[in-house]
């Protein structure tokens, strides 16, 4: 098994880790019943009841699967 010969410097470690960035997902904004809803593009959306309980997955007005 390969074993590192030298200790990696703190600067190198930090330089590597600084390249790891989170990026915000691109969301689609739709207005439904006067309420703004964000969802992932081309992906089914979880429909919630009035009490916030997930009911089912919906895509383009079609019920896809149970939540």
């Amino acid at each position, binding site marked *: 098994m390969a074993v590192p010969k030298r200790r990696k410097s703190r600067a190198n470690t930090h330089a590597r880790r600084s390249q790891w960035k989170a990026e915000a997902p691109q969301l689609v904004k739709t207005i439904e019943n006067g309420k703004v809803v964000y969802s992932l593009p081309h992906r089914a959306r979880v429909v919630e009841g009035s009490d*916030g309980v997930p009911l089912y997955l919906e895509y383009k007005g079609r019920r896809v699967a149970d939540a």
Partner: protein
Amino acid sequence: MPRPAKGPRLGGGPAHERLLLAGLASQLFEHRAITTTEAKAKRVRPLAERLVTFAKRGDLHARRRVLRTIGDKGVVHQLFTEIAPLVADRPGGYTRITKTGYRKGDNAPMAVIELVLEPVTAKRPARRAAEPAASDVAPTQASAPEVAPAAAEDESSPADVPVEATDRVEESAPVEAETATPASAEVEADAATKSDDESGKAAS
């Protein structure tokens, strides 16, 4: 015809992939819809559609060719007697893949692949339904183009715009009906508070 897949086989080897896809297709015909990963759904789609094509042919040779892939005679019987008549008018495209979400354990993108068993609806009637609106606009333009500037705006945009507009009307109409009912004031209040919470979560 299924296009040969590029890249590594699913499951680790060609035989494993064949068995895996055959199993997925078998389950698809048994349950009409299955949840699996996106990659597997995309790979099983051409196989499943090919088997459906054999089922539509319906003779003994086709049945034996399907049995080469799917071992379960009960599933093959279902495919030939129940599924094939439902898709008899459909010129291909027997399955629908809908991307759902990401699996909890490994964040794999998941999808639902299902058989499209609804009767075939021609796309022409929908366009004809949209056309009368456009045709109503057109004669007014022909007769009095100066009188209708709004119609001229509609003319610049293609016929897709009226279709979208009708969809929005359909969506918004039930909302107005709900708000019009007096008994739903409490429900609305609850929904308003919860919508505020959800918007706060979405913003955070």
